[in-house]
Structure formats: structure tokens, C-alpha cells
């Protein structure tokens, strides 16, 4: 083999370089990162066991299930949020390491790169929800059969908001430790959005503010199959608007990042 003996047959890859092979390798790398695993899989489950499994929560009923089940859904949303955010925020680490620049020396199109990151974020989001629900099933959570499926799916799908959020922050904050900033931010947003404390138990002012924060919509929608309570349209609007805002932010930073100056 020499550079000159094989001149022809140079083709661009399909789908701008988007491939299952890349997703597989990236997943392998993610699992290797212990911090990501603890953050996204272990922590929500531990929170659930700490706050959701006391005797009164197990016995008190909500919809067709118990409060433990209600808290489980909230924690699953929290886990999915952490997972998708850290998935999106991977770009920040990769930019800091100069990896993004290295990728520009390959046929990978920037849009394909972002698509890979989003899919990765959604994959760990799904794993996070499944792990939380598995722990919940053995931890005394009671939900109607369809609610197990519906709540899990909704928690996962709506976590797309935070995949966009993670991407946006990943492009905004060029830092190796971006999740050390975003972890507390997500915790604050979870309190503000009624994920850790029900909105109904907040004062009027905070309850009103809560409805405009990005975690509110996801929580309301994910719990709806259990509670059948709350304004689903307002919640859906909340998710759509925040997804649009974070995606627009991510696109804006992404364009800046990939511009050839």
C-alpha cells in the first residue's frame, strides 16, 4: 500500500458521518466515565430511596398508586434530566480537549455530530429511567400498570428539553467540569419547577413562577398518567417553548463554534 498506488475510490461517508459505529464507541466511553454513571444512574435512585420510601409515603394514595410511586416518577424525571443534560454537555469537554477541532479533520459534518450527541443523551436518559423504575418496583412504589409505561416514556421523551439544554450549555461553557456547574443548576430548577416539592405546597407567587421554569412541564406531563391532575396544555406549552429556546441557543452557539474565521 502506498499513497500513490491507490488513487481512486475516495467517497464521502453517508449521512455526514453519522453512524451506529460512532454511537457504539461513544457509549463505551461514556460508561467508562464513573462520574457520569454515578450522576445519572445511582444518584436519582438513591434520592428515591431516601425521600420516597418512608411508611407514610407508602401508604398514602395518589391517583391509582401511592406517594412512593409519585416520588419515583419525579426522581425518574430528575435522573433523565441529569442524563440528557450531561449527554448534551459532553460537547463542552470535547471542545476543551480540542477534540471538536480534530473532528473537523474528518468527514463528520457538524450536524451529524450534534445528532450523535442527542441520541447518546437520549440513550442514557432511557437507561436512567429504566434503572430508577427498577429500583422503584422493588422499593415499594405502586403505580397502575399503564402508568409504569406511560410515565416512564413521557419522562424520557420530555427530557429532550434537557438534551437541548445540555448542548446549549456545552457550547456556552468551555469547561472540563461543566457538570459541576450544571448539577446544582438542575437541582435548583427541580425545586423551582415543583419536582422535589409539589407546586401546590408552594406559596402563590412561587407556584406561579414555577409554571414558567423549564422543569415544571416535564414533571407535570410525566406524572399525569398517575395523577390525571393539572393543566396538560400549559405543561406541554412549557416543554415546547423551553425546547425551542434551548435548541435555538444551541444552534446559535454551534454556528459560532463551527464558523471558519
Amino acid at each position, binding site marked *: *500500500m*502506498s*499513497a500513490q498506488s491507490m488513487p481512486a475510490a475516495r467517497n464521502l*461517508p453517508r449521512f455526514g458521518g453519522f453512524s451506529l*459505529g460512532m454511537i457504539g464507541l461513544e457509549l463505551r466511553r461514556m460508561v467508562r466515565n464513573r462520574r457520569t454513571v454515578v450522576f445519572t444512574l445511582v444518584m436519582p435512585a438513591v434520592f428515591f430511596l431516601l425521600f420516597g420510601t418512608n411508611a407514610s409515603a407508602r401508604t398514602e394514595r395518589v391517583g391509582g398508586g401511592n406517594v412512593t410511586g409519585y416520588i419515583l416518577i419525579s426522581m425518574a424525571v430528575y435522573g433523565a434530566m441529569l442524563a440528557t443534560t450531561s449527554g448534551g454537555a459532553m460537547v463542552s469537554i470535547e471542545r476543551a480537549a480540542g477534540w471538536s477541532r480534530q473532528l473537523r479533520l*474528518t*468527514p*463528520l459534518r457538524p450536524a451529524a455530530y450534534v445528532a450523535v450527541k442527542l441520541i447518546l443523551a437520549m440513550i442514557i436518559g432511557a437507561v436512567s429511567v429504566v434503572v430508577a423504575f427498577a429500583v422503584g418496583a422493588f422499593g415499594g412504589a405502586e403505580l397502575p400498570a399503564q402508568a409504569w409505561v406511560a410515565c416512564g416514556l413521557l419522562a424520557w421523551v420530555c427530557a429532550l428539553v434537557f438534551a437541548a439544554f445540555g448542548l446549549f450549555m456545552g457550547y456556552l461553557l468551555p469547561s472540563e467540569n461543566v457538570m459541576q456547574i450544571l448539577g446544582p443548576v438542575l437541582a435548583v430548577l427541580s425545586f423551582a419547577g415543583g419536582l422535589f416539592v409539589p407546586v401546590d405546597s408552594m406559596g402563590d407567587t412561587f407556584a406561579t413562577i414555577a409554571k414558567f421554569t423549564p422543569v415544571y412541564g416535564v414533571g407535570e406531563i410525566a406524572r399525569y398518567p398517575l395523577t390525571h391532575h393539572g393543566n396538560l396544555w400549559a405543561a406541554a406549552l412549557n416543554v415546547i417553548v423551553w425546547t425551542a429556546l434551548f435548541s435555538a441557543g444551541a444552534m446559535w452557539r454551534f454556528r459560532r463554534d463551527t464558523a471558519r*474565521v
Partner: protein
Amino acid sequence: MTLTAQPEAVTRGSGELAVDLDGVVKRFGAVTAVDGISLRIRPGEVVALLGPNGAGKTSTIDMLLGLSDPSAGTARVYGRPPQEAVALGLVSAVMQTGGLLKDYTVEETVRLTAVLFGRGRADVARALERAGIADIGSRLVGKCSGGQQQRLRFAMALLPDPELLILDEPTTGMDVGGRHDFWSSIREDARGGRTVIFATHYLEEADAYADRVVFVRRGRVVADGTAAQVKALASGRTVRATLPGASESALLALPGVESVELRGDTVYVHARDTDGVARHLLTETAARDLEITSRNLEQAFLTLTADDDNQEMAR
């Protein structure tokens, strides 16, 4: 002072040019990093891009790789816009630092590159082998030494089997042994006919490994030719001969002579065209015991950059 040689290499050949830079300018705000570089490189040449820090070497390389667009002028790699040439794997590069993820293994890093270029496992094994890191494939990148990481970058660059390989200060931070081994790999590889462009500030590397040396200073090409030509251009050469009763003024009048020194019966003539001086001495005078010495590239480099510094100071 602008010195230009016209080596045969830059005249238009019949084949397609590996690199064709035509009046390329790169400005960053008020700063002009590259100030009109025109450069033609034919397939198979091994070219050193030499110059002091801030001369515009890296800016030029970035434009060749499509990482940035010229403010004016055009850049073509194998007749294509650089970005297209990169995507097709016609050109690849070993960058100075960064560009690696610590939590991938060596093999995974190369495999990911292969996936992106649509290449198979056989190409991964070949690239690892050629870069001399087949034995550390399962090691995490974060646990590799600087030299091993540089070899990994080299393996990634080799993966698409590029026609043109660009190396930006490839041996920065390596010890002497590592540098030697790295260059042996590159040299081995270039034997297959690959075009190689490398930026370096190790002059001995340019002298030892390049067919052609391009001096860049303040965004311009100030000298271009073989290492020997550039040495001669930059500092001239010295003719030493034994010539009793030599006339200093007669020697100074010869074309291309810059200085004449007489020490007893020995004359030292410092000139651009030392061949002409030697021919004159041997045919027209009684000179004997003649010797032509060239300064090394290091001295040539110092001459060129010292001139730069003087201009800076004169401002």
C-alpha cells in the same frame, strides 16, 4: 530583504499540484498573519515550513486544512477546496497539541477515525502498526506519554491513507530519542510517495528531512528552495583560497561578492555566487587550495530572523 529561489520543484509540472496557494492573505482584525503567500507543492515533495513564532505557519496550515478561510486569495489541495480534500481523506494532519480524548483507548481513538472515514478494522491495524503503537492499543489515551500521544495523532492522520500529510510542529515536547523515532516513521512512510509538509522550529529537522525548505517571515515567503539553496541564499557561502598578493578591491568587484577578508596569503570571499568566485580564482588567478564552505541552516535561520528583529527594533 526578500530572497527567492526558483527551484525546479515549483515550476508547473504536468501532474496535478498537491498544494496550490495563490496570493493567500489571512487577517485577524488589524493583524495580518499571512500576507500574500503563493506556494505550489508537487506530489511527493517533502517540504519544511520554517519560521519564527508568529510568522504565519500555523495560519497557513489552518487554511490548507479548511479550518479557516483565507481573507483573500485561494487555497487548493489536489485541485479541490481544502474542506472537500479533508472530507475525502486526501489530506490529513498531525496537530501540535490537544485533539485527543483521555477516556478513549488508543485503539478506540483510531477506530473512531476509521468509522468516520468509512474504513475497516484492517486499516485500523495498519495505521497502529505504521505509527508504532500497535502494542499499546488497549491503553487509555490519558495514560499515554506525550510521545505516544503524538504517535496516536500520527496513526489517526495515516488512517485515510492521505496523499498529503501535514505536520504542525510534530515533535514539540518529545525527547531526542522520541524525535528520532518519530522522524524515522515519517521518513519510512514518505518513501511510499506521500507528500509531506511540516512546520518546525527544529532547524536540523528541516535540514535532515525536507527536500525543500520554505522560510516564512511575517506572513511572507522569504526564501524557498532546497536546504542547500536556502542556506546559500540566506547567508551566502565562503570561498577560502591561498592567493599571495591578492587584491581586495578586485575581488570585491566580482559579481555577488559581499565581503573579502585577507589573512596573510589566505583570502576569504563571502559571496552569494561562490561558484563564480571559485571559477574566477582558479582560471584568472594563481589561487590554489580552494575550499567552499556553507553555513548551516541554523545560521541561515538566524540571519533571516535577525533581520526581522532589526526591522522590529527600527520601528
